[in-house]
């Protein structure tokens, strides 16, 4: 097998991993703070993509400039979804939460289908066609910028959680909601903010991937499932686990595409998931299973 091809696969996978990481970081934050699995995660990402598309086509705003706006809108969506819907069943059994999130996912996905239609779209960006050569390997500049921005956003989230009062109360509420309430934390509000931030992460991921990844409303389901894979592999609720897990899964899929065939790349991540579930359900970087 051609070494250059393998190295190129590794590099592409690694750079795409930034997007995976950002998706997974959002999901793991929501789970870590309120023990709710956001089954609508991928569909929120789809709305991030279409918002970037709207900004680009209507206002001529490049996705690399417009992504904070997409993240802001998704923050509001996540906030409202938590406040109005998830909040009411936060103590209900798992299956009720899963069904509620599935219902929200159906509404979001098909809302996008009704508004934007089923045709695949791509958002134009001034970076999209430029490449840089590193010896025999080429680097897609759009992917590189997306990767760097995803890393910066994860870093900012980390600083937020560990260096600000709101972030600290979020971790407190995640650790012990009762104790946090006793010392005067508005736990419900913290939950809504956490859900909003999680949605903003995946919304930003959607906007940042839109220039080089053709999308349609139905990609949301796959994105949700991929996010779950990564978060389980990395360890549910673990931020570094989600980030590194994203890179790992992206590289594994990319190598799977090189060695097996592009249509079999998902098989690699699902096999990885099954192995992790069986032998280390807490994930590579997780603590104990909740």
């Amino acid at each position: 097998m051609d070494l250059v091809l393998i190295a190129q696969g590794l590099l592409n996978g690694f750079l795409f991993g930034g997007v995976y990481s950002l998706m997974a970081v959002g999901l793991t934050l929501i789970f870590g703070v309120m023990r709710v699995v956001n089954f609508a995660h991928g569909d929120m990402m789809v709305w991030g993509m279409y918002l970037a598309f709207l900004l680009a086509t209507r206002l001529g705003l490049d996705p690399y400039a417009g992504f904070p706006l997409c993240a802001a809108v998704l923050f509001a969506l996540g906030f409202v979804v938590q406040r109005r819907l998830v909040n009411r069943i936060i103590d209900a059994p798992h299956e009720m939460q899963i069904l509620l999130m599935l219902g929200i996912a159906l509404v979001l996905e098909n809302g996008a289908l009704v508004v934007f239609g089923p045709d695949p779209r791509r958002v134009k960006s001034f970076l999209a066609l430029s490449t840089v050569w590193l010896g025999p390997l080429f680097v897609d500049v759009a992917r590189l910028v997306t990767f760097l921005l995803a890393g910066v956003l994860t870093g900012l989230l980390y600083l937020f959680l560990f260096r600000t009062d709101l972030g600290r109360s979020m971790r407190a509420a995640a650790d012990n909601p009762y104790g946090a309430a006793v010392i005067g934390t508005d736990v419900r509000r913290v939950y809504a903010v956490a859900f909003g931030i999680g949605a903003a992460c995946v919304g930003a991921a959607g906007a940042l991937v839109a220039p080089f990844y053709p999308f349609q409303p139905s990609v949301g389901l796959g994105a949700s499932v991929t996010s779950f894979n990564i978060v389980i592999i990395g360890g549910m609720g673990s931020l570094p686990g989600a980030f590194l897990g994203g890179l790992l899964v992206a590289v594994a899929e990319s190598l799977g595409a090189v060695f097996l065939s592009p249509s079999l790349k998902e098989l690699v991540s699902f096999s990885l998931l099954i192995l992790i579930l069986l032998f280390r359900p807490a994930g590579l970087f997780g603590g104990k299973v909740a």
Partner: protein
Amino acid sequence: MRLWPLALALVALAALPPFIGSYVVTLFTLIFFYAYLGQAWNILGGYAGQLSAGHAAFVGIGAYVTAVLSLRLGLTPWIGMFVGAAAAALLGAIIGYLGFRFGLRGFYFVLLTVAFAEVCRIIALNTEAVGGAVGLYITFTGNPAQFQFQNPRAYYYIALVLMTGATVAVWRLEQSRLGAYLVAIREDEQAAEALGIDTFRCKLLASVLSAFLTGIGGAFYAFYQFSLQPNTLFGIPLSVEIIMRPIVGGAGTPLGPVLGSFILSPLAELSRSYFAATGWSGGHLIVYGSLLIAVVLFLPQGAAPFVARLARSWRMTR
């Protein structure tokens, strides 16, 4: 529970076909079929409380095994469906063994089932011997010995028998020792274990039984639709369809899946054709999703207890 209203309803459904058009026949066939699949899921998801979100895998295996045996070896689906169901049961045993042996619960078990269904889908998509992405097509001969019928009312009756049979089976299960064990496991697994129930064995049995019945449903589906596509048969959307009926009707009750199917299947079918006519494809799934949200928020036990309460108060006011 009084049985005569149910028996009456069954007689009415059996007498109905000569008086209704082919569209209504199709509608009822789908109601029965999804009620049947929901009932099969009910054993594992409703009674044992192990939420499987990958039941499409069993539909797909049952459908593919039956169809391949019929197309390649000429084995009649009347026998082939049991081979297909056995294959589905084997997969159910594997998933159950791995999941329960390693103590996966809640969300982790959900993901394990999803992952297995997706692996099946990707393998079917990439295996040329079973048609790959194009899928398999069954030529219509109209030969009843090959599970093919000129008259769509035949499928109506088969689906009615499947639904009734599965409902009676689940009702009997509920009365049985195993049924009581499963409910105990669902309510409090550690307490059940402390009482000496072999929870691993019970959950495994539930998984195998549920997968077997679902596999039979897959065989029916293949020979009702005359085509098999990996994305339809193994896809997550089908798994979600299977889960929704028992939950909406009332999971862990014998009539829940039936009730749920009578509510959801016509709604899905009618709103699908309505929205398709107006060019709003996807609209029906918005209705569907909203309904799911409403059920979780307002009827968390499903419609069955609600209907039972209504029936009781109606009886008392007389």
